[in-house]
Each structure stands twice: as C-alpha cells, then as structure tokens.
C-alpha cells in the first residue's frame, strides 16, 4: 500500500522529465507523445540558434564569474563562523543565509533599480553581482558543515611542527575540507546555471543567460527545441547529482543519521 503510493508519487515527480526527453526526439514541430519517430533536428536547432549560442556564452561567463568569487568568499566566511563564539556565529550565519528567503521578484527589481541608476545594465556585472549574492548562502552552508567537523588539533599539530599558518591551511585544512567544498561548488554551479527570476529582471537581449533565453523562446514558439535543450540540462544535472551522491554522501548533507 505504502509502496504503491510511493511509486505513484515518484511517477508523478518524474513524469514531466520523461515527457520532455521523449518529445525532444520528435520528428515534427507538432508536439506528440509518444513520438512518431526519432529525429535529432531539435538538437541541431538548439546548437545553431544564435540567441542560444549567445545565451550559453553568457551563462558560462556569469556562472564562472559568480562561482569564482563566491567560493573563496564563502569558504572564508565558513572558517570565520567556526572561529567565532557559537552565539555570534549563529547570528552571522542568519545574516549570510538571509538572501535565501527573499522572493526572486523583490531581489530582481531591486537589482534592476540599482543597475539602472549606476548605468551598468548593458554589461554582465550586475548579473554576476546578483549571482554571487544568490549562490553565496549555498556555499557558506555546505562549507560550514565540513568546517564544523574539522578537528582543530590537526591544524595546531601542523603549527607546532613548524608550519606557517598559510602552509597549515594549504596542506592540512584545505585537503580536509575538500568534500564539503566540492559539494559547495556543485550547489553554486547548479543554482547559478538555473537562476531565472532575478536574471530576467536584469538581463538585456545581449546579456541574457540560458534560462531567460529559454523562457523567451517558450513564450514565442511551440516547437520541441526547448525540449531538446531541457533534455541536455536534465542529463547534465542528473549526472552531477548521481556523481555527487556516489562520492559525497548527499544523504549526510540532507538527512540526520542516528
């Protein structure tokens, strides 16, 4: 009974994904399921559509820029939180995680107003700044989990053996933090690549990232091109999550074990 309900609910959760993948191989522009044949023409369309090429390039630049900034900033913050007194740390953590609870349209319109006032909307700088702010909470949270599990005596041992603080950090702390930082990187990349609402407000046709370009396409056209692009996104994400679960113990991040 429970098993049946769980299977039905999992089917509900995965049904849209299955349909998207199936439709992406549809040979005609009229959507049909199951597909009447197999064709890769929509994948060709994805790769050759100039606006998607531009948006993919923008996505790459914005995500790379945002992650490159957020990773060291977030890691430093997690180390800082661990060194502070618990009460102060939990207060600062609340401040650092607060962007998570802000509705996307509020942040988006806010960044639009500021970006327009500074005359920066034609560059990608506002997009990158917004993405840094949006992925930082994920980086801090993942990094903090590993920082808290760190044994401080190891760093002290390195120091007592003559290592400089920087050397102790590089040779002892950083390697121990690696699983947590990999999880942080994974979150940051996925959140940034998929960010949509805030980016919609602060993008122009020239700076828009892939989700925004996909949105515009869906509103204007009905052919399965977006199904093909979505399939590429889904396959990429699934691979990342599967690898992460194999190597990083996602359950340890999300669930409590006794």
């Amino acid at each position, binding site marked *: 009974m429970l098993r049946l309900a769980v299977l039905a609910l999992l089917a509900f959760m995965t049904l849209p994904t299955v349909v998207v993948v199936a439709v992406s191989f549809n040979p005609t522009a009229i959507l049909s399921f199951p597909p009447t044949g197999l064709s890769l023409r929509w994948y060709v369309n994805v790769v050759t559509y100039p606006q998607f090429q531009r948006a993919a390039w923008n996505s790459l630049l914005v995500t790379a820029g945002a992650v490159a900034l957020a990773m060291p900033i977030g890691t430093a913050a997690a180390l800082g939180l661990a*060194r502070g007194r618990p009460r102060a740390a939990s207060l600062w953590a609340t401040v*650092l995680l607060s962007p998570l*609870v802000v509705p996307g349209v*509020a942040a988006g319109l806010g960044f639009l107003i500021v970006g327009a006032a500074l005359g920066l909307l034609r560059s990608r700088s506002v997009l990158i700044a917004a993405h840094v702010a949006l992925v930082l909470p994920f980086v801090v949270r993942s990094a903090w989990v590993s920082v808290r599990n760190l044994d401080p005596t190891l760093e002290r041992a390195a120091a007592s053996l003559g290592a400089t603080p920087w050397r102790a950090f590089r040779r002892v702390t950083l390697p121990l933090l690696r699983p947590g930082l990999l999880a942080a990187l994974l979150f940051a990349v996925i959140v940034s690549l998929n960010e949509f*609402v805030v980016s919609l407000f602060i993008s122009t046709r020239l700076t828009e990232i892939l989700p925004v370009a996909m949105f515009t396409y869906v509103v204007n056209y009905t052919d399965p091109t977006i199904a093909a692009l979505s399939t590429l996104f889904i396959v990429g994400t699934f691979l990342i999550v599967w690898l992460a*679960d194999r190597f990083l113990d996602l359950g340890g991040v999300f669930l409590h074990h006794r």
Partner: protein
Amino acid sequence: MRLLLTPALLVVAVFAAALSALLRYSVLEFVPGSLQTGGLTVANFTGIMSRQYLGAVWDTVLLSLATTALTLVASYPVAYALARTPSARVRSALLVLTLAPFFTGAIVRTYAWMLVLGNTVVTWPVPMLFTPRGVLVGLVHFSMPTMILLLAAAISHIDPAYERAAASLGASPARVFRRVTLPLSMPGIVSGSVIVFAWTLSAFATPELLGGGRVKMIANVVRDLALDSFNWPGGAAFAVVALAVTMALLAGVGRLTAPADRSP
C-alpha cells in the same frame, strides 16, 4: 573572525542595497511614461487594494494554501519511505529521484508541465493548461522536493522503537501512524508547510508559463508592472509586500524549529 567574514558581509551589503532601493522606490510617485520618479507617496500601496490587483492577491493566497495542503499529503509517503527504508540502494535511489527535480531549473520543469498539461500526453477531460488547476499541479510538483526533504529529516529523528513499542502493545499500523509517527513528525510538518506556503506566495515561473497570462499571482503582477508598464514604484510596492510576508512567515518558522535543530 571579522577579517574572514568581511568579504561575505560586503556581498550581503550589495544585496541589502538592492533591497533598500526597492523599499525607496515603493514610496516614490510613479510618473507615467518615464523612469523618473516624483515625490514621496503611499499611492503605490493603496493601489494594491484596487480591484484588479486584489484579485491577484486573493488567487495567490488560495493557490498557496491549496499547494501547501496537497504537497504535504503527496510528500509524506515518499518522505517516510526515504527516512525508514532499510536498504541503502533504495534510499539512494529515492534521494536522487527526489533531488533531481530540485536541481532542474524552474524553466525546464515548467516547460515539461506545459507539455503534459497541454494535451500532448493524454487528452484532459477539462482544460488544464492556462488554468488555475494546471498552475496548482505545477506548484505542487515544484514544492515536493523541499517538503520531502524537510519531512524526511523530521521522520528520521523519530526513534523507530516508539513505533515498535506501540505496535507490540497492540496498536494497528494506522493507529501507530496516527498516534505516534504523525505527532512526532509535527516539527517537520509545520516547518515544511510554512516554507512551502511562503515560497508559493512569491512563485513566478510556474504561474507565468502554466497560467499563460490568464492566471496572475503577485510575482507576475510585479513583472507586468516593472517590465511592461515600466511602473517600477508600483512593482516595488507589490514586491515589498511579498517580501514582508515571506520574511515574517520564515522568521516565524525559524523560531518554531530552532529548538528541534539543536537536539541530537
């Protein structure tokens, strides 16, 4: 500690600057046909009370309540299985299936529902796409991963010995669930429901695409005002209301669940 936190706090300061610009615009007068603003006014907030916008507020609250209730019912069995399965393989599979849509962005998920609801797979007896019903389905699907994770975390806190004890004393499985498991998982139920409700209040992509302009929630009105009418003050007022309600709800749930988080 200070030095290590400074860069992160600068980032938060940039974010706060954007929100304070939003707050400032929400009390500035809108000059039609211009991005310039006039003097101080409360007209943007009183404008929300007008007939056309109040409908969107009402629809948003109703859809959010329905989404929360349906998401809770649909997520509980999956969360229970996830927290209680003895098999590591099943747990891993459930976790990946739960998390995968969590990581598939809003556009991909919503587009997928456009295909399903738009008579591509089956022909629906009643119209689904571009109706509140269709939006509801999309919103429930969108909220399930979050709810499942929060519920599973709460259920995994419950010692299975309590359930075994109740069963050995003669309680039927239904009674064990109703009298032991359900009450003990209440922290997860409350926090999950409030979080899903708060997030649905400011949902954007799902109603925008599955509503097709016919179903408007608060965030869609903000977009229309800001990006179509260039009425940034009007959009800002709506966004400020959404922000205030969301923050209040989530701050409330933070206080409710804080003690539970500290227990081992």
